[in-house]
Structure formats: structure tokens, C-alpha cells
């Protein structure tokens, strides 16, 4: 038995509480700032307790827009972020579950080649090939479209690898039994494999939704119209004016709104999130 000392627990609680405090502090300040009026925030002597302008700030941000240079209501930006994140998550799951199915359950010429072609994409994030990708998207006339926001980001290997790994653990007897019952490839996929994959699909969905929601560089490059921006870009645009003109209370309200959906996903689907994170990375 390892010795148990009460002061040991007290130190642990103290360190962890300090950690939670550090982690929560910037967000707490943002929430507080979103409840004060502009003068209080810009004055530099903002109190650390909530003010009385919360409703006004959030109303202005969501329905009227917070930026003087690009007054786009945050409601619209939230919708754009949601469509982009959903598109990336669902798109990635669809194309990668199909390709993993082909690689694991079929034998055909160039099977290994196909797998490696997909695998190599793991190594190069979009950041290192931004301008050529931009040009491709521009040539395809997909600037300022949801397709342009979504498609380049679903070209990645993580999903295929994850599904391949999972399919390898599915017992062969299941396929043999299905075949004896007369099921073809579609039937087996739909009735047997897909129901078994629900947890893997959900875990991948959680991770990819957060990934899609938090994209920055790519939407920044390919959206020129304010109405196509995502919320993360929207916050940035609110702050490009000179500091005295930037409406920090609205930017902070927007930041709170931008954090809510992905944070809610992590907190309420913690089990799936942890599983997805550990499995996609390893």
C-alpha cells in the first residue's frame, strides 16, 4: 500500500484549483466584459463583476453586428460556422468510411497504392499549401461558397485510418455469416458494419466538428464577402479598427458566442470527445 497523507490531498486540491482558475480566468473576463458598456471596458478600469448591459450587447452583436467596418450580424456568422463545421464533420466521415471499407474488405489492384495516397495527406496540413490550394478553389469558382470552405478541409487521412483500425477489429465471422445469409457488399455495410461503427462515427464527429468550427486561416483566405465569414473570422475583423474605436464589449460577446457550441460539445459529450481525441491521434 502506498502511504496516504492528508496534506498530500490538500496540496493536490490546491494545485488543481489554481489550474482551474488559470484556465477559467480569460473566459471569465470575457464574459464580464460582454456585460459592460463600451465606456467601462475601454476605460481600463473594468470591475470583475458583471455589469448591466448584457442583453443590449448580445442583442446588438447577434442581430445588428459588432463591427463598424463590416457590420455583419453574428447570427449569420454563427450559421456559417455551423454549416461549415457540420459539412466538414459529415463529409469527412462519409468519404473516409467508404474508402476504409474498400481498403479493408476488398482485394483489388493498386489497393496498397490507394491506401498510401490517402495516408501521405496526414503529413501536410493546409497551412503549408495555402496559396496553390487557394488558386485551385478560385479556378473552380468556389470562393465565398460553402463548398470552398468545406471541401479542401475534408481531404485528410485521419478518418480513413480510424475506420480502417476499427474495421480490422470486427470479427471475420460476421462477414462470413452475412455472406451465407446471402448479403452482398451493400447489405453487409448497411446492416452489419454501420451499426457497429456508431461509436467510432460519433467520436470522429465530435473531433471534426470542433476542428471545423475553429478553422481560421482557410476561411480568412477564401471569404471576401462579409456574409460568408465564420464567427472566428468575424471577431478578428471587429478588432482591426484602431483600438479606441473597436467595440470590445461586442467583440467579447461574440467571442463568448463563438466558444459556446464547441465547448458545449466537449463538456456534454466528454466520453466521446476523449475517445475520439485519443484514437484519431494515436
Amino acid at each position, binding site marked *: 500500500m502506498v502511504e496516504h497523507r492528508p496534506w498530500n490531498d490538500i496540496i*493536490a486540491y490546491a*494545485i488543481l484549483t489554481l*489550474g482551474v482558475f488559470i484556465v477559467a480566468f480569460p473566459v471569465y473576463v470575457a464574459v464580464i466584459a460582454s456585460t459592460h458598456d463600451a465606456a467601462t471596458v475601454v476605460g481600463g478600469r473594468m470591475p470583475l463583476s458583471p455589469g448591466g448591459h448584457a442583453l443590449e450587447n448580445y442583442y446588438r452583436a447577434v442581430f445588428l453586428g459588432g463591427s463598424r467596418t463590416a457590420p455583419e450580424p453574428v447570427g449569420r456568422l454563427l450559421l456559417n460556422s455551423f454549416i461549415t463545421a457540420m459539412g466538414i464533420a459529415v463529409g469527412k466521415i462519409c468519404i473516409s468510411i467508404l474508402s476504409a471499407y474498400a481498403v479493408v*474488405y476488398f482485394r483489388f489492384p493498386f489497393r496498397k497504392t490507394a491506401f498510401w495516397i490517402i495516408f501521405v495527406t496526414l503529413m501536410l496540413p493546409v497551412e503549408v499549401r495555402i496559396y496553390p490550394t487557394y488558386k*485551385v478553389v478560385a479556378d473552380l469558382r468556389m470562393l465565398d461558397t460553402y463548398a470552398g470552405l468545406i*471541401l479542401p478541409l475534408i481531404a485528410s487521412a485521419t478518418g480513413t485510418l480510424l475506420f480502417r483500425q476499427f474495421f480490422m477489429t470486427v470479427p471475420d465471422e460476421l462477414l462470413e455469416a452475412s455472406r451465407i445469409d446471402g448479403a452482398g457488399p451493400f447489405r453487409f455495410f448497411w446492416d452489419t458494419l454501420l451499426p457497429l461503427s456508431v461509436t467510432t462515427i460519433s467520436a470522429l464527429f465530435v473531433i471534426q466538428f470542433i476542428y471545423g468550427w475553429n478553422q481560421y486561416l482557410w476561411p480568412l483566405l477564401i471569404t471576401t464577402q462579409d456574409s460568408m465569414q465564420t464567427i472566428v473570422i468575424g*471577431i478578428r475583423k471587429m478588432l482591426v479598427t484602431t483600438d479606441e474605436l473597436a467595440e470590445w464589449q461586442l467583440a467579447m460577446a461574440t467571442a463568448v458566442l*463563438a466558444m459556446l457550441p464547441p465547448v458545449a460539445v466537449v463538456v456534454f459529450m466528454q466520453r466521446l470527445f*476523449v475517445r475520439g481525441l485519443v484514437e484519431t*491521434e494515436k
Partner: protein
Amino acid sequence: MEKSAVFNGSRLLPYALLAPQLIITFVFFYWPASQAVLQSFKREDAFGLVSEFVGLENYQALFAQPEYYKAMLTTLVFSTLVAGLSLSIALLFASQADKNLKAAPVYKTFMIWPYAVAPAVAGVLWFFIFHPSLGTLARPLRGLGLDWNPLLDGNHAMALVVMSAVWKQIAYNFLFFLAGLQSIPKSVIEAGAIDGAGPMRRFWTIIFPLLSPTTFFLLVVNVVYVFFDTFGIIDAVTGGGPAGATTTMVYKVYADGRLGGDLGGSAAQSVVLMVIVIALTAVQFKYVERRVQY
């Protein structure tokens, strides 16, 4: 590992199943990546109308630039600080959360949610707290006699970017360290305790070495994180400034191509980055499994 039971009859079906992913990969991955390599050997005029083959000129120009070495150094300093700090802080918190505490699951939830915050948003939050004129913590800093101004002072800007990046990355490292700690057999630790080793000694001689595969894995992931995912933080907080003090290599690819219009030079930088990332990934695959095990 291969499946022994497979479908044999259909010839075209597997290609049809692969088609969506392969098409998207070719159009948005291989084609642009090859264009980046090609473009790095070319020079284009400002309007993109004429381009001529210039061989290695872009690379020569790149490696003759003092700014490029500065960006390399900035990247090195930045990644060392962020990886070092976020790994040690996360390990400290994870080793406390690994103790048999009643409230440990609650603490876990509170530690991991910053993972979900977008890097750019994290940057904006920290910028707001430390903003020279309106930041909540800027005044106390000045009260301590520090002339705090991340908009003008390169070191202050770097400190701010590092803090935001570390804050965001602690969640991820915490989660993996906690999983690693929980997979260490309790019997080993008990054996150490019976032999008279105290908590600190047990940590450094038993737990830390057994944790080394996790640590190494996280080290590589963190370096890749610092290279790419911190773009949003840097752009939101400093825009690469002041005077290039926070311009990392990835930021320079963006800035040179977009603001400077030097597409050839930007492409050459992309290629250098690709090589670095491929090397890092290769190191990860080669050594993570084999070397770092006791």
C-alpha cells in the same frame, strides 16, 4: 494485418467506394502541393500573367534573407517555450488529478474544455486581458514597474503569444498525461513505496520514466501544434509584429504570399516547411514505438 474474409466478386465497386476521397485528395491536396513545388522554381510578375523558370533562385533568395533566419529562430524559441511550458504544467496538473481524489472527474472536465476554444479566440481573450491600455492585468503589471506594451515591445508580444498558446494546449496534454498515468500499474508504485521511496522519488524514478512514450508522443504533437495551429493566435494577437518579433515560419509563408505578393518565395518556404513536417512525422513513426520504452 490483413482481413482473411473479403468480398471477391465485384471489380468496380472498391474503386467507386474510394473515388470520392481520392478525387478530393487529388484536387485539393496533390495538385496544390505539386503546384507549390513547381512554383518554388518559378518567378511570377505581380499580376500572375508571366512566369519564368528560375531554378533554385527562390531558395537562394530565401536563404540569403536575414528575415528568414529570424523567423526560424522565432519559431525555435516559440516552439521550445510553448512545448516546454505546456508539457510541464499539464504534467503537474495531471499528476495531481491522478491521485485518488473524490473531485478528480470534475477537475478533469474543467481542465479539458479549452481544447474546444479556437486558437484565434484564445488569442483575442489573452490580448484583451493584457491589452496595454484596457487590459485587466496590464495595470497591475505596470504597477510592478514593468513598462508593459505588447504592441511595441517584441519580447512582451512573444510572451503574450506564448501564454495564449500554452493556455490552449494544456488541455490536450493534460488529457494524454492523465491517460498515461492511469495506465501505469499500481503494483509498481506500491513496490517503490514498500522500498521506502517517497512521493517525489517515486515520481522521478518510476512514474516519469514509465511515462516517456506519452511524453515523446506529446512532444512531437506539440511541435506540430506550435508550427501550424498557432497561426490563428499569432494573427489575432500580434499580426506577426512588432517588427517581425512574432513572425514564425508558417506566418511568413502567409505574410510573404499575401501581403508581399512574393508567391515564388512563399512557395519555396512552403516546400521547406513540408520537408520539416515530413521529417518530424517520420521521426515520430520511427522512434515513438521502438526507442522510448523501458
